[in-house]
């Protein structure tokens, strides 16, 4: 990992730094399992810029921070999909229960 960084530094003659939002995206992505929806969406928004920056110039950033961005994005997407599915299932159940409430015909 150190050797890789030195190579990158030599080639581009600039210090290799981590992507700015890497840790935030990872933490928000993982928190999206506990704090619904909002964490996942914020994680995806924050990570879009960083991803673009990394893809334009991969040598200027550490690969570890890109791994963190990737992990945060995957967790956020899985979390959001899961919650959407569960809300739909929950909605169906509520609708089913409401439909089958016995009515009093007086």
């Amino acid at each position: 990992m150190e050797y890789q960084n030195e190579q990158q530094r030599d080639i581009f003659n600039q210090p290799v730094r981590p992507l700015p939002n890497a840790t935030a995206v990872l933490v928000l992505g993982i928190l999206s399992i506990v704090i619904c929806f909002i964490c996942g969406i914020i994680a995806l928004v924050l990570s879009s810029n960083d991803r673009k920056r990394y893809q334009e110039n991969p040598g200027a950033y550490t690969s570890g921070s890109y791994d963190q961005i990737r992990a945060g994005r995957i967790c956020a997407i899985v979390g959001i999909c899961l919650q959407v599915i569960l809300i739909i299932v929950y909605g169906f159940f509520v609708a089913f229960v409401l439909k089958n409430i016995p009515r009093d015909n007086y």
Partner: protein
Amino acid sequence: MDCPGCGFQRSLLLLLKGDLFASIRMYWGTIPILLMLVFLLLHTRLNFRNGSKILIWLYCGNAVLILCHYFYKLGLY
């Protein structure tokens, strides 16, 4: 009518009281989620080599566990 997160708080309180098995029975995902959060904290500080990949697997495992527990609570098995 239960939601997927129902029981998490109660399970956490049971865990703080020290009753491990009651906590697991109340909400299957409490201890795995706490372990994942601890690993997340360690990874942000100590930067493990494959930490991000491990976290993806831990997250997906937790998601599956929570889904399974939710369907079990609803009686859909």
